[in-house]
Structures are given as C-alpha cells and as structure tokens.
C-alpha cells in the first residue's frame, strides 16, 4: 500500500488513499497514517465507512480502531477497547460523556473500492 502524501489541512478537499474497502472488515476497523496522524477507519455492517482519530482520550492510547463496532439506537459507534466508552462514528462525540469528542475525518469510497481519508471535519 502506498501513501500519497498530498493531504494538507489548508486543502480539506484533498483525500489520501489509505486502503481497499475489502481490507476493512465489516464492523471492524484499521488504522491508517494520514498526514502524520493515526486515523481509525471503520466499516459498518451496511458498508458505510467512517474515520475518527485513533487516539482514545480516556486511556490516552492510540487504540480506537481495535474496538467493537455496533449500534446504540440508530447511532453506529465504536467502544474503546480499553475502558469501553462509546464514540459516535459520524461525529466522534463520546456517547457516555458529552464533554469529550475525538476528531472525525472526511472519508470517501471510490467506485473501484478504494478508501480515501480527507481532513478533519470542522463541525457536526
């Protein structure tokens, strides 16, 4: 896998190819190195793809991609593998502590099944 290193934060529309979709298992995650940051890329059961910063602010370790992916109500989330806090895959908001949030990244899947990660989403 090659790393295309054209991502810059000043150009949030620039996307980096990180892997093929079939490298991310359904309801699982992988970590990609994007612009020097560790980004967790998740795939849900219905093939939606989300990306969050891999760093778990509670345990202060870079591990979120290793968590269990599931749903709470309608929200897809990942549970930190360390102490199980849940993070909303779309926004990075912690569902157990409203004051905590991890950065969420833009992601795209191309027609030929490549996963692309963009910049940090500013809001949502």
């Amino acid at each position, binding site marked *: 896998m090659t790393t295309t290193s054209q991502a810059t934060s000043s150009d949030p529309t620039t996307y980096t190819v990180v892997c093929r979709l079939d*490298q991310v298992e359904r309801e699982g995650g992988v970590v990609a*190195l994007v612009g*020097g940051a560790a980004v967790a890329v998740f795939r849900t059961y219905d093939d939606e793809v989300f990306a969050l910063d891999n760093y778990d602010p509670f345990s*202060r*370790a870079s591990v979120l991609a290793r968590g*269990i992916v599931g749903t709470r109500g309608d929200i897809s989330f990942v549970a930190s593998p*360390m102490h199980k806090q849940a993070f909303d895959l779309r926004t990075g908001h912690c569902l157990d502590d409203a004051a905590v*949030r991890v950065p969420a990244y833009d992601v795209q899947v191309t027609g030929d099944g490549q996963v692309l990660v963009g910049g940090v989403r500013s809001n949502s």
Partner: protein
Amino acid sequence: MTPTPDHKRLTLVVVGHGMVGHRFVQAAIERGLTETYDVIVVGEECRPAYDRVALTSFFEVGAEELSLLPGGAYDDPRVRLVTGTEVTGLDTETRTVLLADGEVLGFDELVLATGAAPFVPPIPGKDLPGCFVYRTIEDLEAIREAAAGATVGAVVGGGLLGLEAANALAQLGLETHVVEMAPRLMAVQVDDAGGAMLTRHIEKLGLTVHTGAATEAVLGESHVTGLALRDREPILAEVVVFSAGIRPRDGLARDAGLDLAERGGVLVDEQCRSSDPHVWAIGECAAPAGRTYGLVAPGYTMAEVVVDALLGGPGAFTGADMSTKLKLLGVDVASFGDAHGTTEGALELVFADAVAGHYKKLVVKENPDGDGTILLGGILVGDASAYGVLRPMVAADGTSGIELPPNPEDLILPASRGAVEIGLPDEAVVCSCNTVTKGEILARVSTDGAGDAEPCTDATCVTRCSGAGSTCGSCKPTVKKIVEDHFASVGKVVDRSLCEHFGLTRQEIFDVVAVHGYTRFDDVMEGHGTGRGCDICKPVVASVLASQLGGHVLSPAHRPLQDTNDAYLANIQKNGTYSVVPRIPGGEITPAKLIVIGEVARDFNLYTKITGGQRIDLFGARMEELPLIWRRLVDAGFESGHAYGKSLRTVKSCVGSTWCRYGVQDSTSLAIMLEERYRGLRSPHKLKGGVSGCARECAEARSKDFGVIATEKGWNLYVAGNGGAAPVHARLLAGDLDTQTLVSYLDRFLMYYIRTADRLQRTALWVDSLDGGLDRVRQVVVEDSLGLGSELEAAMDAHVDGYFDEWAATLEDPDKLARFVSFVNAPGTPDPHITFREERDQIAPADADGPVVLGATIAVGAPLGAVAGTR
C-alpha cells in the same frame, strides 16, 4: 434543634464504640447533629466498632472483614474517635468524664453505649487459665490459641450465645460439650419440643448436650481440667467458655448515682434519657421502662431515638421486636413474636417432622371481631424458610394484625403440602434490623415513590438504598421476592436482558443457539435481537458460539465479535501494547523452555514478570510483533495461555507426592492433565483451578473455581472459590474420588456452569444464584438428578477433541495475520504513540500526553489537537 445562642459549638461524648455507639454516630452525621455538636467517641476496645453479631465468623474472615468502620475514622471532621481507652469516671455535676489515661472531657450531652458483659457464675475455679468468655475479637483470639493445644472444650450456657460459642469450639476442632442448666437449649426462644429437636440436630453434628445440668465448679489446679456438675459425672475439658447470659455495663451510671433498673441497666425513659437530663443510654446497657434488650436491632432504634431527641424530634422507644433467626451449627432456628403463647386466648399450631428434623409452631389467636385468626408468634427449627413471610405478619400489639388465611397451618407445612403465598400489607416491617417496611421497599422501586432519586432496579439496589437486608441478612429473600413481585405486577419483567439488543439472558442465548443450531452472530441477531449489537452482546454471543462449536475465535464471522483481548489473542496494556503469556501447564517447565522464554523476552525487549498464576508474562509487545514472538514460542512447543480469554487460565499445582515428603497423591500430574483437558474452554468468566498434594494446600486450590485436594483415598473436589475483590473459599462438592470420577464431575460442573451462568458471573456467584445453591449443583453433578450427566460429559469430550492452539493456527493463516499491522497503509512504521522508559533494568510504558504526529517522516499538514474536554 438545640439552640446555640452564641454559636458556640456544643460537645457530645459517646462512651463505648460498639455496634450501637457506631450506629449513633452514623445517624448523628447523617441527620446533621454534627452541625451543632462536636462528637467525641471513646471506646475501650483496641479497634473501632465491629460486627459482634457475626463474631463467630471471625475465624473465617478475620477482623478486617468484621469492621463497621474499615477506614478507622469517620469522614466527618467534627467526630473524634478515641479507641483503646476506657472511661473510668462520670461526674454529672461538672459534666465531665474521666478517661483511663487521665484526660478529662467536658460534655454538654453524654451518651452511654457501653453494651453488656458476659455473666460468669460465681463458682470456684472460674478464673483458672483456660476459662474464657465470648464477646470480643480478643476473646476469640485467646480461645483459638488455647484450642490449639487442646482436644476437648465445654461451654457453660446453652442459649443463643452459648451455642454460638459451641459452634466456634467445634470449628476449632475440639470435641465440644454444651452444659445448660435449663431443661432445654435456647430456653428463651424455643419451647420444649423445639429445644428437643434442636438438641437432636446438634448431637448429630457430634456435639454433646447436657441439659438440666448445673455447673458447680471448674476443676483444675493451675489450668482448667474439667467441670464439676451437680449429681452427674464431671466433664473433662481443657477449654471452658462461659456464656451464661449477659449483664448490662452500668457501672459508670451506678457510681454517678443515676437510677438503675431493678435487674440492672441504666433506667431511661421513652427518649432514652436517664435520670440526669444530659445523660442518655442506648443499646445493651440501657433499660427503657426497666427492661434490657440483648439484640442489636432495639439498640439501633434507641440510637436513632436519641439523635432524634437531640434534634428536637418526637421519636420514642416503645419496646422492640425480639424476633431472632439464626443458623446455629448449620441448623436454622427462628423465634418471633409471642413464641411461648403467653397472650390470653393463644392457640398453638404445631408441625413436627422428626425424620427431616423440622419443628414448626405458630401461635395464633381469634381476631377480636371473631371473624378470623391473627398471628402472635412462632418457633421454627430445622427449616426457617417461612420466617421472612411470617415475622412481618405478627400483630405487634397482640390484637390487630394481618388476617391469616383460613387454614393457617398451610403456612408451616412443607411447600409440597400446599404452603401458600401471602400478601403482606405495606406497613409490615420486613427488615427488623433496619426497620424497613414493605411500603418503603415498594417506594424504592416504583417511579413515583423514589422522589428525586432514580428508582432501584433490583433487590441489591434496594438493600444499598434502604438498608433492608444489610445487617443480619435474614430478610434478603423476602426483599428480593417483594421487588420481583412488584416488577412482575407492573408488567415489567425483571430486567435481566443482556443489553438493548437482546431481551434475553446469557443463559437464554446459550439455549437459543443450541436449539436453533446457530453458527453466526448475524443469525442470532436476526432471530432474537434488534440493531447491530454492541460491546456487551457481541462478546457474549462469541463466547457462547465458541463454547458450543469450538472453531477459531478469529475466523471471519467471529472476529468482529471478540472483546479487546480475544481480538488480538493477547492482553492489551495501558499504552496500547500487549502482553504475552504462554501456557505453562501446572506451572511445570523445562529449563530449555525457560531459556526460550528468556531469549524471546530479551530479543524483543519485553518486560518480564512471574505472574500470580505460576507462569511468565512478557509485556510491551507491539501488535505487529505478536506474530513474530509467537512464531518463536510455537516453534519451541509453547501454546497460548489464554490469559486474554474468558476461559481456563491456569490449574495451579503443588509439587505433590513426587517430591514433597508430605504429599499423598501426584498433584502436579493431575494439575497438568486438568489444565490440558480444559485449556481453551470458553466460559462466562475466567476459570481457574488448583491441585494440592495434601491437606497443607500449598496450591491454594480452595481459592479457585475448582480445587482438588489429595486425600489418602483419592481426591476431594472443591468448587466455586475465587480470589479477587470478594474472595470466597471453594466448598466441598464430593470427597475421596478416584481420578476418573473426579474428571467426570468436573466436566459436568464446568459445562453446567457454562450453560447456565450469567455473563461475567464467576462460579461462586453463579452457585449462589442457583435455587438451592451448592445442593443444587451437587444434585445435578453428583446425583445426576436431571439426567444431564452424560450430555454434559459428551459436551466436554467434544471440546477436548476439538481443541487446537489458537496461536499456531493464526500463524498458519495469512488472512488472520494481515490484521497484525501498525498501519494499514504503512505496515513497516511502528506506532509513534508507544514509548517506553526504563525501570529496574527493564522497559515500562512512558505516559503519552496526546496524539502524536509523525511529522518528520511523512509530509503533513498542521498538527491536530486533541478535542477531548472541549465542546
């Protein structure tokens, strides 16, 4: 509220830090009395208050466990606790007390909570070495020491406390005699027939009971040698415990000239105020209306009454429920209300079953309106299960009460003969230790009754919030029943469902998987769940599938279900690295294998530590290193130790008869055999075993889920022990087994557990949760009452046949290995978040402070800050 004109703080001194003194201070803090008073508590014993009611369990659990104030101090700074200091004088004129160390304390209010002292009859020889009383932890320590060198003990007194003491002597391994002057045991609580039944039970346990026997002297020159009885042969004994009643400790009050009751005790009014308006007395030293109470519940009520009085409240003590239920030497005994039928017009209903050893009596009376019967009291010996329902039905004032069903005898007949469910009225006191009514329990669980607080969701929560069941525990089954009946009545099934995705318990999930033959999470979800699952239900289904089907936990359909550690077949550590624990069955390892572990640890620079489970843990492995490390370990013949799984961990061994001069069986070989038999077995919680080669128990087998201890004739099998936060000793399931029987019982036990336990419920809690507890397990496992034995054994055989090493299989499979990379798009780049420092010549995790940016190696944009804490 007591006025404090110039805002000067007042001083309240409490004499005695026993159960009641402690309760008083707690209530004073909770109810705000410490806003106006500085409280000084002076206790003579060397430690803070402890649970005297549970004194006999001291030998099992130790002093720590009994403490009512484990921290040793109250967390209100306005309370000062002085222990190990006797109060030797009281001067009501100057309002001072004198302490043994000479300190003088002034008080505005004084609360006497000095309890009672055991009564020792004035007979010759009573002070000889070898004579004891049974009241404090120090007494028990002294008795234990004396028992170590003795073979026979005698207790003078066959009342409640005497039998407790006899129990203790028997536990200490002494041949035990109980000498009681009255014609029956527990004369206060039970009648002649009940006492006779009790005697039979106790004699069956090997104790000797002498009723109607008067002790005339303690024999011996320099040490006790026995007891002389009137008109009977003397009893030879080296340890004598006096437990012939108690006397209130009213000496301070007596010397200060306060009024005492005729038969001792500080005479107090309904507010527990003595003849001096600033001196109060509570607990066993107090005599409200001239009567003393030798139970803790009335003392607690008195404590609350005095706090209330000092706050200006109307509380009054107007007599107490003297009901008791206890288990003496394993025999249930309960006595409640007017047990002896002294009320006018009382009728007795008696049920006795000499074979089962049950004696039950109800004392009833015609309702004054003549249209039914009310319950006045009763006695239960041998089976006191009806106590929880009966006691709250007793008519407190002897007239009004709860209407009994038309055939009240149904209440005491064995369940099979038609015992009926009784509805208690809301005002019935369910927990007498803490005076909690049924109405209050219902209020805790109903949405509108709980006030601002969240309603309780189960009986444990009710106990925590209301105190019901937190003292002697005898009311717990009733509390639970009330809570569950309530939930059932409002149509709310007691919520035992796993999580929002499954309305099923773990056991039910186990059953649906077995019945439908599901092999995938998705099928279970489709048939029985909603949504897509979560971190709770996925690992449960994964574990159930693994228990039933075997297979690899990292196979594609199962991989995303696995909990953190199973997901990478290693234990995650705080910095995101992993630890590696190869299996070392029974703790036995060759030097060559030890060397391999050392070399691997050295080559990968891993922190190395001997675990508490007789094996070696290698810490600090990066995820991508795990396959490399395991390649080397597997090549050297190691297997996964499943330190990461809810599965068998270790079977700890001692060296046993092969080397040890005491060993009677080969414990090491058995431990290795068992560890290899059950390795890889996925279960509701982790499983640990142990095998000791003799009763010295060097393998600590009784602290394990299953423990085997060698005997001359074979093996004793103990089950359901654990260490951890709430340690439990494993209990004997079956004794003197040959190895084959042992293995079949263990197969059954473990499979029964796997099938029916709740998620993360270890064996001890599981056994407790079963209706019938250990007896139930014995029926299923030993007696095969469900006829499940061969099915359970077959399930275990299937597990044994299907076992393979997870790590070896992972190394063979490129798909599984593909996940063990640091970055999907930069597999060669180590995760820069992971850094180490050095400690005692090995690595240790360095604290990470935020996401790291790999700026130097790859072109990047502006660093990203952590958003934690912002919003």
